[in-house]
């Protein structure tokens, strides 16, 4: 896309925002409803595009992309009027008569940069937040999911207000050009490395930023506290579902690696293998229920993680690679070297390392030795361990005894900390992340507090001292001449 055209689009977005049209509840609701229509009308096209770009099955597409967008838009529509209302800030009596309120105002012109693994929802979900908050928006979908990107480019203008919501396609050059412009807010989903670039570019214009990054999300499996037949099966299902279910391991909140006690390792491996077979069949390559690696570059990157002989020697399940189809089997590794690239970099692929410990309590120190992850997935019934994990580790979030589902919970802020990200969204947090909260205090002209003003004397000093302590009784005495000053 030509850069001059990009500049023109940006200028129009500014102009539209200045006109004030995006401020009204009516406009915002119209856009959200139109977005719901868009995904409803084009559901099949979206299934096809996601299947083409990532090999995603329609159920996965619905669950992780279309369904998420529908849920978010519906939630926003139901609550937007309330969210837009100012919040009251209580004012101390000393300022009487006065009122305080916190007013949410849109930042202005917003840039949303999407990622390729959930190319629809990771663009439209933030878009819902930006629209709800009353901004104009420019969306840059990921070029690594080309059919989804062109779908958005071609379809959004038919449903949403084209003067206020625009799509720009392109690769690195386009992104760089966009990042050099002045935005009122940037929302980025992607890798740490690019996150740094985005933040540095934003610094030039003092633009506030939300970065949804990633990290190595560990699952802690405490099979000492989970022993029933039924429960252990649930654990295995949820882990398999949380590893290969979302885009075959290519998800920021996917399970990256697993920690388990040495004595339970084999049992767990067997269970995981069983469910991999049940979900994906004897030859997962043939299954239509698992995504493929997104492109050659990422395929080679993941393949390279297995090249280290010490790593490949630790494979205990899977390992099959189809170069032509860019497919890698769901693969489990047992105790690969901790200094291997597999264990130091975010895997973002279908490889699941299992690290064994003597005692499950060691998992806390293990996790704390690395950067803060986006999510920690402890599977345990031990209440003491639960408390320790929550208080002694830090991560974007923690989900106990399940994987992935926190993403669906609109009342929980979703975001990272440290290297896993900055800022958060979902539900009202999306609205807030695209708003500036303005404190507004209103006063009357009467009564007027003389002691505020010079020339100063000891009476005024005493008055102010009492006022700052909210010592209304003392103030009364002072005013009646019954207090020394």
């Amino acid at each position, binding site marked *: 896309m030509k850069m001059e055209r990009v500049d023109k689009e940006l200028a129009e977005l500014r102009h539209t925002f200045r006109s004030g049209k995006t401020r009204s509840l009516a406009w915002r609701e119209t856009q959200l409803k139109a977005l719901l229509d868009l995904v409803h009308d084009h559901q099949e096209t979206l299934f096809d595009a996601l299947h083409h770009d990532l090999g995603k099955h329609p159920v996965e597409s619905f669950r992780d992309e279309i369904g998420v967008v529908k849920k978010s838009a519906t939630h926003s529509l139901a609550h937007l009027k309330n969210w837009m209302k100012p919040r009251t800030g209580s004012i101390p009596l000393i300022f009487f008569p006065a009122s*305080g309120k916190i007013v949410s105002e849109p930042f*202005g012109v917003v840039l949303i940069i999407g990622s390729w693994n959930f190319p629809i929802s990771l663009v439209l979900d933030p878009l819902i937040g930006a629209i709800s908050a009353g901004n104009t928006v420019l969306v840059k979908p990921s070029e690594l999911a080309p059919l989804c990107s062109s779908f958005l480019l071609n379809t959004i203008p038919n449903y949403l207000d084209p003067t206020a919501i625009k799509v720009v396609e392109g690769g690195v050059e386009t992104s760089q050009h966009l990042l050099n412009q002045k935005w009122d807010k940037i929302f980025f989903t992607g890798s740490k490395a690019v996150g740094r670039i985005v933040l540095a570019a934003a610094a030039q214009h003092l633009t506030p930023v939300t970065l949804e990054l990633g990290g190595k999300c560990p699952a802690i499996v405490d099979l000492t506290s989970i022993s029933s037949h039924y429960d252990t099966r*649930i654990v295995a299902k949820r882990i398999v579902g949380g590893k290969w279910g979302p885009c075959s391991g290519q998800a920021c909140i996917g399970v990256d690696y697993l920690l388990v006690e040495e004595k339970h390792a084999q049992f767990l491996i067997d269970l995981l293998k069983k469910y991999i077979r049940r979900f994906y069949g004897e030859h997962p390559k043939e299954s239509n229920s698992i995504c493929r690696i997104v492109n050659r570059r990422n395929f080679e990157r993941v393949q390279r993680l297995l090249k280290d002989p010490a790593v490949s020697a630790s494979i205990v399940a899977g390992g099959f690679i189809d170069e032509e189809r860019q497919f890698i089997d769901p693969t489990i590794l047992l105790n690969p070297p901790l200094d291997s690239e597999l264990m130091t970099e975010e895997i973002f692929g279908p490889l699941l390392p299992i690290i064994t410990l003597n005692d499950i309590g060691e998992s806390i120190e293990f996790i704390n030795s690395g950067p803060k992850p986006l999510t920690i997935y402890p599977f345990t019934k031990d209440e003491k361990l639960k408390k320790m994990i929550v208080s002694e580790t830090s991560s974007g979030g923690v989900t106990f005894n399940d994987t992935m589902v926190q993403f669906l919970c609109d009342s929980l802020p979703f975001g990272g900390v440290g290297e896993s990200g900055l800022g958060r969204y979902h539900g009202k947090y999306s609205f807030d992340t695209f708003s*500036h909260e303005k404190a507004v205090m209103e*006063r009357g*002209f009467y009564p007027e507090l003389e002691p505020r003003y010079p020339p100063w004397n000891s009476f005024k000093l005493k008055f102010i001292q009492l006022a700052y302590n909210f010592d209304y009784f003392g103030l009364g005495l002072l005013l009646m001449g019954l207090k020394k000053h």
Partner: protein
Amino acid sequence: MIILSLLPTSNRCSVTVPAVLWEEEEKKKKKQPQTVTFGSNEASSMVKQLRQSFKSGKTKSYQWRVSQLKGIAKMVEERESDIVQALYQDLSKPPLEAFVAEISMAKSSCREAIEGLQDWMKPEKAKTGISTYPSTAEIVSDPLGVVLVISTWNFPFLLSIDPVIGAIAAGNAVVLKPSEIAPATSALLSKLVKDYLDDSAVKVVEGAIPETSALLDQQWDKILYTGSARVGRIVMAAAAKHLTPVVLELGGKCPAVVDSNVNLEVAVRRIIAGKWQCNNGQACIGVDYIITTKDFAPKLIEGLRKGIEEFFGKDPMESKDISRIVSPAQFKRLVGLLDEDNVSDKLVLGGRRDSTRLKIDPTIVLDPPQESQIMQEEIFGPLLPIVTVGNLKESFEVINSKPKPLAAYLFTEDEQLKQDFVENVPSGGMSINDTILHVTVHTMPFGGVGESGMGSYHGKFSFDAFSHKKSVLYRSFSGDASLRYPPYTPKKQMVMKGLMNGGLPGMLLALLGWSSHNSGTKS
């Protein structure tokens, strides 16, 4: 110890204090040991040590946090006169202004944190819905770790200690870098923090650009910076390397729009309080310029003239109730703004200046050109431009043509105008019919937007600014739906659509096979 040799001469405090005090300063410095440079190595080992302190878990405990906050409260209580003296030395700040603007605010901030901490530290329960049923959820406040607070010179005590209170309340280890342009306060803070607080987790680094750069090279878990937009960019760019979140408290041109239907006497006093009583205009939330109607301007000017005389006497330069300009560099800059062509002839009040005492009269200029420096840059001094318009609604355009300010003020009794102002003028915060006060109310966040800053603090917002709000979801083992898992049969597809489109009823219908064949019903 301040490395004076690296500062441009204009920033040295020598010219800014009476000669006698200056000689005493020199004598003191000669007695003190050699300056130790604080460079990259020193910064890195300090951060390492603080990380160890943080890892040990001591700063996370409620007891530690409260003990430190009580230490700060004690410090402010016991050393109030030292603090006031340092503020007078750095800024000629009148003791009452020091008390009102800095000491009292610090005290109340501390008290607020001590009283609120137990509640603030409690996890917040969060609702969970059908999509994660059955589950419970909460939001837990985690300290971020090791944080950096970079302070500024105009309220050098408050703007140092207030963010530190927030950082400690949230359970972090913290380094404070006070401003070298207020050297007496900087030195005092360094001493007081050592005397009253836990040196293994709360540190002060004095210095100027080299020391600040060395600190900014390190990896912090959060940085709170108060100062100019120019340096704000540098801080954020340095933070970007480590993906460090920042709070930037910057500034801007804070306008006051004045309607003719107000109680002039009260309005004038409040404007004076928000301009010359606020560190003599050297405040990020001070009134920078006024907008009023052509008709009302003469009355307003006359009102201001009377008020200034009432507060500061016939010769404001002799008044003890007004601060001086902080340094010769700032003085020179301000005189430059005033003496610019097309501005100097718009003078309607004041204009006198005294470079030895670093004083400038409360000065008003009427309708300087919009392109003049005084209307383009943040004034940060005792000069007050008044811009006139035909109709007050035009004031919105004037304000919105400039970067978003930290605060905006409106004086009016017109309810519609108030509403329009709140809705159409973006700013960090606002006061209607008063100035400054909205930032003293800690139930409301204090922060900027656009060029005036990002993030906010004060009260519980300080605690939140220095915390990570961690979502914790507790799921049980019951109620596991096989439809979650592959292989994805058509039946599973239908049920899932039912659930997402129509909630529980939708899902039940789908389970019974009653969902429509098309792509689901509209919600």
